[in-house]
């Protein structure tokens, strides 16, 4: 296999990985602060993808324009979900949290099936099949755009957590819950804000992915699993980790596809997950608790 074929593949894996990273980012943020494992993560993303598809199909709006509105709506959705449904479950045993979100996921997946039917849908804008050619390297245009947006979104989130007041308050909750409550922070509200931010990330990722691939009602669970693999490898609670994990998975899957049969490339991701869990459970960038 020639060098440029390999380069093409690795580069593609890198770009795809950045988008995966954005998808996982929301999960990481939520877990890092609220300590809830959101098993409905992928399903929420499927809803976002459908939202982008509907907007494009009915009004011809490019998903890139939908980013901010969807982020806003999903922020509200996440906030409401946390405040309304999930809050009482924070101190419940993990299997109870998991079951609740599983029920939510079940309702979402089948709600999508009832509303949209089983067909696969996606957004095909005019430039969907364009690519840039730099010598022997051919880069997918949409992938580049999505990767860039993912990076910007991550930077924005990072800025929020570092520089805004409520960002600092959220970090305080994560670092020392008791202390945060003692100094009078409204933890419930902050948790909900965090959930909202995480869900907003999912919304953005969904809009982007609607341009990269199809969505069916059954897309959710696969995304959930992928998000978890990335987040664990990168480190639950670390934003840089989510991105890094995404890139690592993206590139390793690409390489695995090259070296062994592509249908088994996910095995490598799971093997990596097992290795990370065994050797460094807090993930590559996580803090050991």
């Amino acid at each position, binding site marked *: *296999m*020639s060098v440029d*074929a390999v380069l*093409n*593949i690795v580069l*593609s*894996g890198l770009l*795809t990985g950045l988008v995966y990273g954005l998808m996982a980012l929301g999960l990481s943020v939520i877990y890092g602060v609220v300590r809830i494992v959101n098993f409905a993560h992928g399903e929420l993303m499927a809803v976002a993808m459908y939202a982008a598809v509907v907007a494009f199909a009915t009004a011809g709006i490019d998903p890139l324009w939908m980013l901010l509105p969807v982020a806003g709506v999903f922020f509200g959705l996440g906030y409401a979900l946390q405040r309304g449904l999930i809050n009482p479950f924070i101190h419940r045993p993990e299997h109870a949290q998991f079951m609740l979100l599983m029920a939510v996921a079940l309702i979402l997946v089948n709600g999508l*099936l009832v509303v949209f*039917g*089983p*067909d*696969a849908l*996606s957004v*095909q804008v005019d430039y*969907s*099949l*364009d*690519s840039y*050619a730099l010598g022997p390297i*051919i880069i*997918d245009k949409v992938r580049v755009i999505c990767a860039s947006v993912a990076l910007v979104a991550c930077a924005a989130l990072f800025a929020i957590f570092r520089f805004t007041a409520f960002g600092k308050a959220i970090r305080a909750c994560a670092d020392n819950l008791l202390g945060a409550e003692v100094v009078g922070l409204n933890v419930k509200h902050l948790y909900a804000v965090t959930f909202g931010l995480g869900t907003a990330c999912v919304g953005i990722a969904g809009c982007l*992915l609607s341009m*990269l*691939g*199809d969505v*069916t009602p*059954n*897309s959710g669970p*696969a995304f959930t699993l992928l998000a978890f693999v990335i987040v664990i490898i990168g480190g639950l609670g670390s934003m840089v980790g989510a991105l890094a994990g995404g890139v690592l998975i993206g590139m390793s*899957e*690409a390489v695995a*596809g*090259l070296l062994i*049969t*592509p*249908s088994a*490339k*996910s095995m490598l991701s799971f093997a990596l997950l097992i290795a990370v869990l065994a050797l460094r459970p807090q993930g590559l960038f996580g803090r050991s608790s």
Partner: protein
Amino acid sequence: MSFDRRQFNQASLGLGTVAAAAPAISRAQTRALKVGVLLPRSGVQAFIGQSCQMGADIAPEIVKQLNGVDIQLMNADTESNVEVARSRAEKLINDGAQILVGPFDSGAAIAIAQVAEQRKVPFVVNIAAAPQITEQGYKYTFRNFPTSVDLIRNGLALYRDLFQATNAAPRTAVFMHVNDTFGQANRKAIEAILPRLDYLPFKVLDTISYDPAARDLSVEVAKAKATKADFIMLVSRLNDAILLVRELVKQRWSPQAIMSPGSPGMYEAQFYKALGKYSDYCISNVPWYDPKGALTDRVEKAFNKAFPKDKLMYHALNVGFTFEAILIAADAFKRAGSADGTAIADALRKTDIAERMMLGGPIRFDAKGQNTTLASACIQNRDGKPVVVLPKASAQAAPVYPVPDWSKRG
């Protein structure tokens, strides 16, 4: 109330007539065959299941016109799940189904076949390619669909016909297949058959299998492109076929053609809708209805009436084979003269239906319950429609090979 003699005589005459006619009436009343239709109407195969259901829905009316048999459909959803398929089959039989039809999926077919065998209820498979279904020695299962081996053999034969018709001689191919039940069965068949065919001189440079749930086929396509093969042999499903073509366009590789030796995807409505001009010229060698057949015409008319917003050509296999399955059931029921499972099964074994919708010889079953006379057609996409280009006798247009470059698509 009292009768006088004449009234009494007339009444008894009338009663006698009625009495004499009664058996005929009751026989006529029992002429409704209860057909249990098992299809995946929800779950991952929902789209195809709903498509097959269309064929089932329009069948009773046409069957009644053809041989006077009344069909009562009992529909059940297998939910794309093997266990559900099994328990639904049991329930249908419980509720009085006299014959089962379905289920599109090989795993479900085997499960249902077991139930059918135990309950001695005949089962006509509409679409399922795993060879094992008719290799179990069952007496109650019949399949009017080629096994993956026959499918591939017919498909590869059409490759030869295509190359001859277009004077092409490609030397290399790359084989890409989806890694699921269907793809694996086809791969095995290809690996067994291809080396033995001396009329196909091309070499398969690489075999690339991919995950059916993959959202991203960039690596697979890059690998395929690196082989620099002349054409792509593709065994796929719908979504991955769409992803694949998009990726080919993005990576700017135009093989001489994308040809399937026998798999779904490239002739389905969604494929055209999703890809537009890029869907053209893709080739699928699959069983198809005879576009010039009288029965096809009838079915198409019924289809258009029932589903005015849709077109039969986009559901060719699903509707065609489901319809034929019900036709076969009705025909056997008529010849058996009773609703007893064993009688119908025996009648099924002797099936010989000349007037049929799908391409191939008359519908007949061998000792294993398999129909071996089915033929495939070479379907090439043209202007967003599936068009029969081979065999010549049924062709609607001439085949094009090699196909135009992506950048030259109108």
